[in-house]
């Protein structure tokens, strides 16, 4: 991440000049990244670590749609449903066709509904899975299912696993950051590190005055803070005498340096004034907007650009009218899709323009799909449907313009090539150079992994 390097080095030098860095740490902080990547530093759990095998992706941007996006209205056309709309299927079910037209996009000609014309425009960069299966059909279980591999118990989230496995390049920012204006189902469990060290927990960014908790200097002036940190440095130095062997003490001293770095670096991340109007236009972001999904996407790109290993963008929260859980009115989708369609496409285009799409894995997923049947003719909404739904991947070694797996002609069950949440997770880890069966953590007497005892890398999605 060359973008920030000069700044970081400058800052480290100025810290050193101000006596804020212990001798010895300085050379380590200024060492080339390659050297860092080859060592495992117990006192610095976020130091970059080598992957199991060469990685296609250096980082992930994980887009999560809360509530469960209907597959049959977005990425999986079902003419049969339209044809038989409102006809009785059996005692309890009537076919429910989509309210939206599908049309082919790109060279691949993959069909996408009119809800997502912008995403359609980048379909040739996308590998679409039409045979996803979640392990649970409830919001809570499905949400933690796709994030942690378990629908019931607390487990570390995928971003935490990645942070634990690979560390991060930019020590001024956490390895795993989550932009989540509201809380998804299961709340903080979605980015929790559970039994993994808490340093791997997702740092939540809440759009607003202080996106990262305590990121703003609270002292009256920068000078005052510096004087104060000098004082702290003095206390810590005095204390260190005779205790030099304790790496925890040095690690904690260092944490203030990185915090100082984060305090300096973070505002810049959220300051979009250096983005061109063309870029804003790409995302559909209006000037001054600091809360929309477009804002999340652009800030997501900026975080990725600055070396954050795993960026998650969460759309919607648990209130029904703000997420994709349209039991009553599928027509809500017009607005919901509008909120995310252009930003997501803009993100992919922007990454591509900057040459970042080659090593950035973009993931789009949700809790589950929605039922192809209604219990009454003319019904407005759809129920939960975890047996089959859609997700997609783009960038970093992914074969764009492909479709993998299919649902049956009703969109009810997987017809072929089911992809479980564990398969999906295994594939994401694989692109990061991680063998999902070897990324383990010993806890309570056994080795845990993200994919539990499951998971198959879906090689058919790879270029």
């Amino acid at each position, binding site marked *: 991440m060359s973008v920030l390097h000069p700044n970081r080095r400058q800052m480290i030098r100025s810290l050193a000049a101000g006596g804020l860095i212990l001798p010895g740490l300085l050379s380590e902080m200024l060492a080339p990244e390659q050297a860092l990547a080859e060592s495992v530093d117990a006192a610095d759990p976020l130091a970059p670590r080598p992957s199991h095998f060469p990685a296609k992706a250096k980082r992930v941007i994980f887009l999560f749609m809360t509530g469960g996006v209907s597959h049959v209205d977005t990425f999986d056309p079902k003419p049969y449903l339209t044809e038989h709309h409102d006809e009785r299927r059996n005692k309890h079910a009537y076919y429910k066709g989509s309210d939206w037209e599908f049309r082919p996009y790109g060279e691949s000609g993959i069909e996408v509904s009119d809800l997502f014309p912008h995403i359609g425009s980048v379909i040739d960069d996308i590998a679409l899975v039409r045979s996803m299966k979640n392990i649970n059909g409830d919001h809570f279980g499905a949400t933690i299912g796709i994030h942690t591999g378990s629908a*019931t118990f607390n487990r570390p989230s995928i971003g935490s696993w990645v942070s634990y*496995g690979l560390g991060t390049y930019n020590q001024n920012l*956490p390895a795993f950051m989550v932009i989540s204006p509201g809380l998804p189902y299961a709340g*903080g469990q979605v980015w929790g590190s559970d039994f993994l060290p808490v340093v791997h927990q997702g740092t939540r960014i809440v759009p607003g005055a202080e996106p990262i908790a305590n990121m703003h200097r609270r002292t009256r002036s920068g000078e005052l803070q510096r004087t104060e940190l000098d004082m702290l440095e003095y206390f810590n130095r005095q204390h260190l005498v005779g205790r030099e062997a304790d790496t925890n003490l040095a690690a904690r001293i260092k944490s203030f340096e990185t915090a100082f770095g984060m305090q300096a670096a973070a505002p810049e991340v959220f300051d979009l004034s250096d983005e061109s109007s063309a870029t804003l236009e790409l995302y559909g972001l209006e000037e001054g907007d600091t809360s929309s999904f477009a804002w999340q996407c652009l800030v997501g790109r900026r975080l990725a650009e600055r070396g954050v290993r795993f960026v998650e963008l969460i759309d919607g929260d648990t209130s029904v009218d703000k997420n994709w859980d349209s039991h009553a009115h599928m027509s809500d989708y017009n607005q919901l899709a509008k909120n995310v369609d252009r930003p997501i496409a803009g993100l992919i285009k922007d990454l591509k323009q900057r040459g970042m799409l080659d090593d950035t894995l973009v993931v789009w997923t949700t809790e589950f799909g929605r039922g192809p049947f209604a219990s009454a003719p*003319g019904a407005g*909404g759809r129920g939960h449907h975890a047996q089959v739904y859609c997700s997609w991947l783009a960038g970093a070694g992914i074969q764009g313009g492909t479709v993998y797996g299919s649902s049956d002609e009703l969109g009810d069950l997987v017809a072929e090539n089911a992809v479980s949440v564990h398969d999906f997770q295994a594939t994401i880890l694989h692109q990061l150079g991680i063998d999902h069966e070897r990324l383990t953590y010993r806890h309570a007497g056994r080795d845990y992994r993200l994919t539990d005892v499951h998971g198959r890398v879906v090689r058919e999605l790879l270029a």
Partner: protein
Amino acid sequence: MLSPAPQSCLPTRATHVRSSMVRAIGLLLLVLLSVLPWRSAVGDERVEFFERNVRPQLLANCTHCHGAEQQESGLRLDSREAMLAGGDRGPAIVPGDPEASLLLRVVRHAEEDLEMPPEEEPLAAEAIAQLAKWIAEGAIWPEHEATIGADTPVDRLEELRDSHWAFQPVGSPIPLEVGALVADRGDEGCEDDIDNDIDRFVVARLAAAGLKPGRRASRRTLVRRVYFDLLGLPPTPEEIDAFLADESDDAYPRLIDRLLARPEYGERWGRHWLDVVRYADTAGDASDYPVPEAYKYRNYVIDAFNADLPYDEFIRQQLAGDLLPAENDDERWNQVIATGYIAISRRIGVDPVGLRHVTIESTLDNLGKTFLGLTLGCARCHNHKFDPVSTADYYALYGIFDSSVYPHAGSEHAPYRRDFVYRVGKQQADEILRPYRERLAPWDKKERAKFNEYQALQGMKTDPKRKRSDVWAELEEIREQRRPYAEAFPDLEIAYAIAEGRPHDVHVQKAGEPKKQGELVRRGFLTVLGGASLPEGHQGSGRLELANWIADPENPLTVRVMANRVWHYHFGRGLVKSTSDFGMRGTPPTHPELLDYLSRYFIDNDWSVKALHRLIMNSRTYQLDSRDVAANSAVDPNNDLIWRANRQRLSAEQLRDSLLMFGDELDRTPGGRHPFPHRLTYFYRQHEPFVGNFPTRRRSVYLMQQRIQKNVFLDLFDGPDGNVEFAERKASTTTLQALFFMNSPFIHERARVIARRALDQADGTSARVRWAYETVFNRPPDDAEVARAEEFLASVAGQLDDSDKGRRESEMWAAYVRGMISSNEFLFID
């Protein structure tokens, strides 16, 4: 792991040097390995694959009919040789060629007349793929094991019971006499290293490695350590002075006695227990329903530690308090509250009542780890892979809890509470509450009817043109109308506790699926621990019997696990590091004889935890300095042999409570019920889960703790989880913690208050600096430190343009205090 030391006869100098080098290298390797996030892929990957993916399948689906006991069609699938030899139809596998392997063809249903497993669902595609991969890669079989199935831990139960250290009866080891130690070590310094029997074991173990313990900590260091350890709070400067001024021989033991008698002791040590039993104030279901009565169990735990309730009795009360005799009604009620231990089991999903097996799993998982140091959860679906615990054992325990009634705190699909325990008894409560219930019932009915209408609209069974939001508004209206009837309920005394249900045995649930019934199992205890069963004609759940089996002094696990926990909390690390896993995968004790000595002492002293504290804290080993000794760390860098104290970071609670105390803000009264809304009036959903934050100045143990939404502060500093057993806290160092110290309102506010106090307490800069050092660092500053403070204050004063002298002074001192309370000297205990 280090092997147990010989008790006499040191190795010669030459071999000693070599062995210590080997040990040093070994330890170094251990360290390196432990920091690598994944195991290095040295060769055994395919065995690993077999263990993870193939063995379980063979055991679950094949070897029952094709194993040691039965050989259907003349085929065995419990060894590689047997697979190659095959049965009536020829070899079962062709290593390297899955397509040609009969095993694969039958599970794929590719053979016309033979499908396996018979009469069951076909194996999942993934399972088949794993078998195929295993065959394709040569059907690798673990070398040390010719056949499987015949020797799972459950099958080797007797052998393991006779060989695994933790299952052996607790011995009565005799500590080495000083004379023998002197002879062994060949110097005269031994006597100075021995305060009590603990030291004899530790020094002998060190001597065997050619090491000597480090020096004793200063009294000033010690007093700070002891206060934080026993009370979770630092000593005040006055308390330090009093201790330092007391030159009598027994000043230190008397200090310990004094602290053990203070109420803060229970708040500190009760918190340890609450960590282990994953205490929380909410249920953990998908909407995280509040449990307003949970605090009674929390306070029970705190009181039990303060009263030094014998540990065996503590066990009995928590598992079966409602079934124990009591001298009066207060005692009876207190014992009922104790069963809150079972009641606080984690709930899951939108209908936890319907997921009873998951709730009971939470109970058994915790019970196994907490009391026995065994992970029982694995045996829910299959015989334990590592420990000799069978599914039959699991369901023998399961039946006991299935025969008990768990309270229900509400959930999305069943918002109304039920099965709480009333102090006046169920019958009387029913009588008192009948009129209220009768008045509320029609409203409950209306509320549910309207809710169902709303749900149905969701399910599209009714007129879809009717707006959901309208129905929702009507629902809310009904709930408001219902409210006064709910709030009118008399406040009877209620506990979140357990009651007896219909006593019955349960069937094994195959693969953990409640619907797949296996054999019926008589309620009883783990086979490896004696396997007692409830007698014929027994009336009751069996909880009391279970409590007695666990609390039996002959049970080799119970006493060792608790003695080790107490050691763990004193030293930051147990003699057995895996404090809740004493099974085959746990770490063996570094000092097995010492552990037995402590355990024996614990039993002989009527299971008094405070007696154990006194024994441990009066040892010289506890009083060791925390500083490095180069000669020792070269051999034992992890301090496994205990030649120094482990420096420990303040816990989240110690940090918060200390800061409140420094500013004289700490409210020392015990916490009670949290200000949840009225218990009968809330309706949480996944869409609107309970999220609460009840600020308080009380000690942190009294903070409301949710299962789904964690307390941000506690979480930031590695606080308790509340969802799973949390036997060992980590002490992470993160950037976000540093930002918290630099910029959080909490820290800035505390610093302001503490600075105010410094200004009030003392006159003049040097006296104030002294007050701050003694309060926060628990030591006086030296001249240079005072000078540095003066320099800092002057520099800050120069930067503040405030004309108001008072305000400027406050700010200067607040800045100074911020530095102090952010520093390592405050945050670490030597």
